[in-house]
């Protein structure tokens, strides 16, 4: 098994494309996007489909890569999250196939 970093980003729908560009520019080209169904934040409950504007929709992006790529992405994500709604976390994970990441 090989040690890698797993970046998990919860991001509002309207900023998702910009987040994707950041990951792709950092060569993290194997990410996956999952729908966020519901949650609690900014003092209120939210749920996917609450309104038709998509203004409050969120997605979860999962990317696994080596430290260099993750750090490159984090620098740009930090700038993005200064204005857009999102939460980013990084954890250490083990992967089976080193060459994939």
């Amino acid at each position, binding site marked *: 098994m090989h040690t890698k970093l797993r970046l998990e980003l919860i991001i509002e729908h309207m900023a998702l494309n*910009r987040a994707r*560009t950041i990951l792709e520019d950092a060569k993290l080209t194997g990410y996956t996007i999952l729908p966020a169904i519901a949650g609690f934040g*900014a003092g209120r409950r939210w749920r996917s*489909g*609450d309104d*038709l*504007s998509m203004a409050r929709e969120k997605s979860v992006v999962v990317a696994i890569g080596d430290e260099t790529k993750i750090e490159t992405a984090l620098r740009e994500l930090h700038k993005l999250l200064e204005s*857009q709604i999102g939460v980013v976390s990084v954890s250490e994970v083990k992967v089976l196939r080193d060459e994939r990441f």
Partner: protein
Amino acid sequence: MLDLALATLLSPVILFFLLGLSAALAKADITIPEAISKGVAIYLMMAIGLKGGFEMAANGLNLKIVSVMITGVLLSFTLPAIAYALLRTTTKLPAIDAAAAAAHYGSISIVTFVAATQAIELAGLNNAGYLVAVAALMETPAIMTALLLAGRHRPKSQNGETGLIREVALNASVVVLVGALIIGWVTGADGKAQVQGVFITPLQGVLCLFLLEMGLSAGRGLRHGWRLLQPATIGFGIYMPLISASIAAVFSALLGLSAGESALLMTLAASASYIAVPAAMRIALPEAKPSIYLTLSLGVTFPFNLTLGIPIYIAVSQFIAG
């Protein structure tokens, strides 16, 4: 006017809205699958656009219609400035939240517009299909005014700018509405005969389903967001549509519009966006709180217009038109 208000309030469309609103406020567990509500929204845009296009094909384009279109664009540009000034003087909203909320009041709610067309038919007034084109034209200028008002808060990154332009220009409601309007205009009576079984006859029933969802959405927004709104802000959500409608009424009188045309223009001016503008604001003014502007437009102004606003606008337009 009381009869008209009662007839509007007791129409299936409004009753389904009130059912959704009260169910959400009572925390009833009703959810319309997201894919259905989005599909129905696109269906409604197509149906409304086609209906307007067919009527334009039948009646043609003339100077009066062009004048109303220009008036609609002017209203969309200027109403946010009035809304912003009122929000800044009467509430404690920060400039960025006030600008974002103001943008919603220059843009339009197509569902409010459809509800008004139904009420106008109920009142025995002539509907004016070309006002669908006016509605489409009024969707986006307000966003530009809001950006000017917010000024230095505008994001500077090129990505944000590109995203905003794409969101504004290719917003689903604008693309489908304008596209369907053109298709209806081009195909005319022949096209109408081909699609009326799907897009004209069932419109009322589908609208009931959509307004149930809108009621649920408005109720959920109010339940979670009302704490964020001061009484003065809630008051704005009720008096701003009346101010906008009054300004539109003056233009209607100057242009010599019929009662039906005037009522629809007033409704367009009075309605507040809850699809195109919130999405654009998340890109253009991300610091603004969606809980404030969405609760205000969807939770306060939308129910007000549906239940009380539309009968008022029709009564005033009848008075103006004599």
